[in-house]
């Protein structure tokens, strides 16, 4: 069974204090790993898809990286508007049909001004 574990569960940063969120996964062959941002009372918002170890993607203050066992979401000089829950999800390889995406429980990030 595919598993996704995110750490820490919650993270509190001062504005400008860079840090990283971790997503560890076990999957029988990775088709794709996804990062989403979720604000309170809203649905998740897509951020990145990573497909293979060594791949990196950036968007503003966020950079996502991928290894064979985990992914990191690096946040550089965060601002209060970066406060949200960040979700990681994986989709396994497979032939035919829908290969279910498994979500982690998320890291709740709070950035203090």
């Amino acid at each position, binding site marked *: 069974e595919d598993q996704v574990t995110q750490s820490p569960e919650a993270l509190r940063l001062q504005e400008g204090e860079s840090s990283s969120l971790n997503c560890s996964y076990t999957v029988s062959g990775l088709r794709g790993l996804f990062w989403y941002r979720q604000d309170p*009372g809203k649905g998740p918002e*897509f951020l990145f898809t990573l*497909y293979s170890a060594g791949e990196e993607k950036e968007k503003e203050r966020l950079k996502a990286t991928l290894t064979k066992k985990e992914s990191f979401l690096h946040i550089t000089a965060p601002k209060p508007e970066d406060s949200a829950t960040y979700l990681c999800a994986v989709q396994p390889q497979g032939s035919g049909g*829908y290969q279910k995406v498994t979500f982690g429980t998320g890291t709740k990030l709070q950035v203090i001004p």
Partner: protein
Amino acid sequence: GAGVSQSPSNKVTEKGKDVELRCDPISGHTALYWYRQSLGQGLEFLIYFQGNSAPDKSGLPSDRFSAERTGGSVSTLTIQRTQQEDSAVYLCASSLHFGRVQNEQYFGPGTRLTVT
């Protein structure tokens, strides 16, 4: 353009009643997904529709849950004889198409269901 919309945004119902939740996916998206999100839990997959193919219902927790998608667009999730453990946020998502490479899913705002 318009995103995924869901209605109602909030629903309070009495135990034992039936409820219907609606999802309007992004126009042109052929894949549609329903998830359930409980407090402190990850997103729980419920059901997946792709085009005219038979839906993947393997995530539905019991036979009280059913879903349909009419005309390849709007979808309705029905929960019969609601129980308190059904209380959660029900999220709908759509994606452009299902292929060898999973396309990102775009989520609606969710319906918060409370069963009293």
